[in-house]
């Protein structure tokens, strides 16, 4: 009910589309579309206060916030862990709360607002919608496309994008996966799903997720590199070099998909002196996670061979 009303207000064909429109409107109003997008003017425009609360040590690795309707107006209560390396994730968390504010302001009716959270499924959809808002705000499509004209997806290109948008690696990769047509990003790490299974390079997640429609490649969690021919993910991991393959085949459930793929990765963390500064603040890299390989992969028929030059420029020359 609430999301239907939201769609009517913002005119999107779906709640996701409506949220994208709403976020674009907010950025346009605030004139803050150039990356890295500062959040302060957005909160000021929305008239929403931010209250910082120290999180208990046992939750130190989690970022989190809640939106409260306080007497003095809407307030985002931001739980800080004290861990500097959470700064990028905290930005996403704050932008996520802007999604909630947009919904509240748009609906302006308690019955409609309550319907957004009326069941676990509705709650999941609500949270996912606010994640979309955060992504739209911190990684505006136009700015991402502009950046992709300058930087490719090799480790150095990814590092530039990471510093340009000042979001987490996860948020950046998700957005890249969503914005490139007929494409996906598959994250790989070495692990096993059970004690009986060999620890090897396996899929951790695909962005965007599975869809019956469209041409975006997809691999389920847990798949090993046996589903790829050639196994460029393994090659990139062992050589610590990005590998571009024009004729990559993905095998899944007896079917194969012709693709163009780039197996790449984020470079290791840097010295603090080489980290970017934003509004006078030195932005730390996120804590290093387990070594992971990112497979940027596009359907060859629908995306065409030219996508290879978007993935890795020097190869195309």
């Amino acid at each position, binding site marked *: 009910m609430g999301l239907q009303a939201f769609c009517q*207000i*913002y*005119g*999107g*064909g779906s709640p996701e*589309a409506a949220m*994208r*429109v*709403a976020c*674009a*409107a*907010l950025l*346009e*109003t605030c*004139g803050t579309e150039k990356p890295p997008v500062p959040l302060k003017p957005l909160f*000021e*425009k*929305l*008239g929403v206060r931010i209250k910082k609360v120290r999180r208990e040590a046992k939750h130190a690795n989690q970022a989190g916030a809640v939106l409260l*309707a306080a007497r003095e*107006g*809407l307030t985002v209560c931001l739980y800080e862990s004290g861990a500097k390396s959470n700064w990028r994730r905290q930005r996403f968390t704050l932008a996520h709360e802007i999604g909630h504010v*947009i919904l509240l*302001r*748009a609906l*302006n009716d308690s019955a409609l607002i309550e319907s957004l959270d009326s069941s676990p499924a509705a709650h999941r959809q609500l949270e996912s919608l606010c994640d979309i808002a955060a992504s739209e705000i911190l990684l505006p*499509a*136009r700015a991402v*496309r*502009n950046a992709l*004209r300058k930087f490719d997806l090799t480790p150095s290109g990814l590092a530039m994008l990471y510093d340009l948008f000042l979001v987490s690696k996860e948020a950046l990769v998700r957005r890249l996966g969503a914005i490139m*047509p*007929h494409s996906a990003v598959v994250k790989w790490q070495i692990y096993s799903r059970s004690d009986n299974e060999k620890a090897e390079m396996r899929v951790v997640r695909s962005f965007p997720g599975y869809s019956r429609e*469209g041409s975006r490649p997809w691999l389920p969690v847990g798949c090993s590199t046996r589903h790829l021919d050639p196994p460029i993910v393994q090659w990139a991991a062992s050589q610590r070099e990005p590998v571009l393959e024009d004729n990559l085949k993905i095998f899944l459930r007896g079917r194969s998909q012709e693709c163009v793929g780039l197996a790449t990765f984020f470079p290791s963390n840097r010295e603090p002196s080489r980290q970017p500064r934003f509004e006078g603040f030195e932005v730390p890299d996120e804590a290093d996670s387990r070594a992971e390989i990112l497979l940027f992969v596009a359907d060859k*028929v*629908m*995306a*065409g061979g*030219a*996508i290879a030059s978007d993935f890795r420029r020097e190869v195309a020359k």
Partner: protein
Amino acid sequence: MRDNEPPLPRNVAGADEAYALTLADVLGKGQICKQGDVSASVGSGKESKEILNYATVLEHPRERLVFNDKRRLNLPGAVARFVWMMAASDRLADIAFYEEKVKYFSDNGIAVPGSNYGQRMLSPRPGLNQLESVIRRLRGDPSSRRAAISIFQAEDAVRESKDIPCTFGLFFHIRGGVLRATTLMRSNNAFVLLPYNLFEFSLLAEIVAAELGVPLGPLTHQAVSMHIYASDYNNAQEVAEAWDATKQSTTPKIPEMPNRPGPLGQVTELVILEAHLRHGSAGVNARNIEEWIERGAAKLHPYWAQLYYLLLLHVAQKNGDRGALASLETLIKEPWYSYLPAGAFTAGIPVPNEVPTAIESPQDESQGTKIVSIYSTRKVQSLKNRVSEWEKESKRKMSWSQFSKIQDVFMERVAARDLDSEVSREEFLAVVKMTADKEDGG
């Protein structure tokens, strides 16, 4: 050469050269022809220079863009003509959206009865698709001489109309392992229409070639009457001279059409997307441009998506939306980007003094002053303008709850297809009074 004897077919590289040399030939060797003013033709009573049975052979028809310093194609307009053709449409409104002058070719203000090449080609009668038949015949027999499309019909030889088809027919042959296409024009306005005809028929030829999986060979463009109207002599001369000065095409290279996904399927998607875009065009703006982009990107191969973005560009230009244009600038790639005139993404659009309000900061959540950001139909846009006027005049802020009530009243009043009319001042003030009364009354 005797007077008005057609020159031998000219072999040229691409559309740029074909255009300039055709103009030079007609200006230099054409016979003056004064049309009588007895017919409904748009050329009726006008003087022109004309060569009968003029032919030019484009060796590289993929070089389909006229890039002359003095005149170049209106690229979104050319794409729109092609899409309109492939939609098998004869509706004037659908093409006049991109090119208003087409209205001069309609007898009733509704249909375009002769230049509806697509309808004549793809659906002259239900189930009769000449293009599919061409592809089927050439698949079955690559040496066939029967792969032809008839645009001109027997009734065109008889009926009186402002618009009798200028194109007579199209022919396709596979010879020497390549597809050789021929366009036969009854009549061709060399200055105004030849660049568009070369664009659309070379694109059609490439579709046939890609569907058949054979390379695209030369395109012969032959006009029984190739002519230039007197009013265009000077401009045509300038185009010919501009070519003469360089004698080489500066047209950016156009990529080869992919044969997978199948071009006909992609054209169908493009036609559907174009219809959606045209119908929703009044609401295309910076805030929702990414939605419009996504619709095309999800369905189309990048080759075809570029054509869709050019149509979106036309709409964004029409709406004067700087943000939407800026988004499209990040998407439109070469060769199209270079072909567009300088300022295609900004020209003529004044910088707004104030960015329109989307979600303003309220003083108090329970009495929000204004939350205005709605899908921009003309009606909603005008409603927002009326609210701004009212706020200025009354020096008061309209509350969100009152705005939403006013909006509800208007939205309930409109018939499904009446989103394009504007809210009048009188109508608006009456509704303000009515909703204020209700608020006061509890």
